[in-house]
């Protein structure tokens, strides 16, 4: 009787411990720095160093646009008369209200996204900067405004000092126009659809995924952004190119260079 009672108490205590551990883990949410085959995920903010020209060399964070038919290495580039860097071929960027890019969460465009004169109002990632007379800026949105595709928030993995990033949600707003400038690129979801087709496709995707074990069609394509990271100092560089697909600047290429310091912090509440 005594032995049985002791056993029961021990079992109850073990179960309670397991339950408590489970509850604690659940309350803790996701691991802020999950490690996968791609490396360790960085969760926090990529604080941007402002772009500048020092001794004729461009440093910090910047962007440039290649004309249709040109190449990233040799141009021809759009010459932004409002930029002093490299004869306007490079536009310098400054960190916005959030200091830079939040990883694992979105920094969506405000509503309305544009001022009356076409200036972009998004000011969290970078300060709106003049580009041919009109201010442009950047935002990251759950549904990309140009391609209408659902995209992941900016996600960066580090593996032995090398960065690989999903910046498919990187969207530019300029003069009442929206351009996806992400890497990889979202697959466009703007093709004409018959009434009800979109819902039917969603139902089919669900059925195919659940009963046919078929993977959903990929929503992103192309290369990821890449870079390097110094774990001791937090210094990072992230670079990518992105072809504009659709709209007035179809086939123009954006070349992006982000530089700064990674600051670790909690995962954004809207990211999960």
């Amino acid at each position, binding site marked *: 009787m005594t032995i049985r009672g002791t056993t029961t108490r021990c079992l109850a205590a073990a179960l309670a411990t397991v339950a408590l551990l489970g509850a604690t883990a659940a309350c803790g949410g996701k691991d802020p720095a999950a490690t996968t085959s791609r490396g360790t995920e960085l969760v926090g903010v990529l604080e941007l160093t402002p772009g500048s020209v020092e001794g004729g060399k461009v440093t910090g964070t910047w962007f440039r646009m290649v004309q249709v038919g040109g190449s990233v290495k040799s141009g021809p580039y759009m010459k932004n008369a*409002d930029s002093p860097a490299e004869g306007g071929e490079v536009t310098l960027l400054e960190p916005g209200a959030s200091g830079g890019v939040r990883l694992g969460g979105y920094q969506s465009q405000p509503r309305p996204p544009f001022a009356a004169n076409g200036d972009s109002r998004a000011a969290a990632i970078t300060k709106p900067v003049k580009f*041919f007379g009109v201010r442009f800026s950047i935002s990251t949105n759950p549904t990309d405004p140009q391609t209408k595709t659902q995209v992941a928030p900016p996600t960066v993995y580090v593996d032995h000092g090398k960065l690989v990033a999903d910046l498919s949600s990187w969207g530019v707003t300029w*003069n*009442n126009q929206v351009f996806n400038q992400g890497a990889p690129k979202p697959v466009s979801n703007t093709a*004409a659809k018959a009434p009800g087709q979109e819902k039917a496709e969603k139902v089919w995707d669900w059925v195919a995924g659940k009963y046919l074990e078929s993977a959903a069609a990929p929503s992103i394509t192309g290369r990821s952004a890449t870079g390097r990271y110094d774990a001791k100092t937090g210094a990072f560089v992230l670079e990518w190119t992105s072809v504009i697909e659709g709209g*007035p*600047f179809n086939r123009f290429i954006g070349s992006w260079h982000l530089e700064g310091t990674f600051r670790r912090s909690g995962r954004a509440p809207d990211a999960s």
Partner: protein
Amino acid sequence: MSLLHLSPLELPGAPPVARAVAAPVRRRRAPAVVLLVLGVLLTVAPVAGGLFAKAAAGQQLVDAFGPHLTADALDRYDADLTTLRNGAVALDAVYRTEHVEHGRFPGLDEYRRKATAIDGRATGLLGSVRAAQPDYLRVAAIGGFDRIPFLVVIAGLAMAYAGVLLLRGPRRRAGSAVLIAVAASVALIGYPFVSDLPAGSHAGERLQRALAPVMTADAVRQEQEDFVVLVHAVGELDTSFGDVPPTGRARRDLLALVRAWPSVSSDLAGLIGAINDNLANDRALADLDDLTRGVGVSGLVALPWLLVGTGVLASAAASTAVPRRRRERR
């Protein structure tokens, strides 16, 4: 004693019992087969011919151009062109009066070289767009263009069902089968007139032809090049050209161009973007128009009359498909 001998009685044969026989109900096979064939054709053809995608593309094109074909938008585009034209004239004047040397402002030099051609192309583009506006409005007035394939397929299914019912179903359901076929026919005949499809599809065919030279990848590419020339020129006007002191009207016109540039570039970008993003939709609409080109008729123009014709044929078949008793011979 004589015995009474009875001879056998010969009775005449009884006449046959006459029973009233019901006149046989005759199934009319031909109208039922016509309904079945029409039904299958109406169901399969829109799917096989990609009508759903083409109609959706046409609807998306119509929706996308809506904001660019309002009277306000067209007036704004004209004002933009006037601003650019005045700016180009003013720039020439300043170059002459101020003896601006070639090469000092490469963006403005290029604009001066190309201004006449750019103006010609932009004027042509806006002329095409403005000329297309009345037809566009008629096309936009068609109610539920992208739902036409659904109407056709549903009518086809109804006719096929009625045909099968008339051929194989119980005789008591023949009446309802005919009613179903008639209802489908009425829908096909009535929709074009309710939605003003004949006028709209004629306008659509004209619109498609009128915008064909504009709706090409080459035209978009040229517009992009012109935009780049303009954007570089205005950029220099707004910055480094400030060193050159133009005066009088030329100064006013150049300042007006610089001030209006955000609005002008937004208009141009929006229009070029709408054209570029609807090239595939325009091709789909052209394919729809070409569907019956083989018999020398525009597919868009023929569409409403195909619906009406099919509806009339089906209703005629349905009306003759009602089962009737054979008349008794007297």
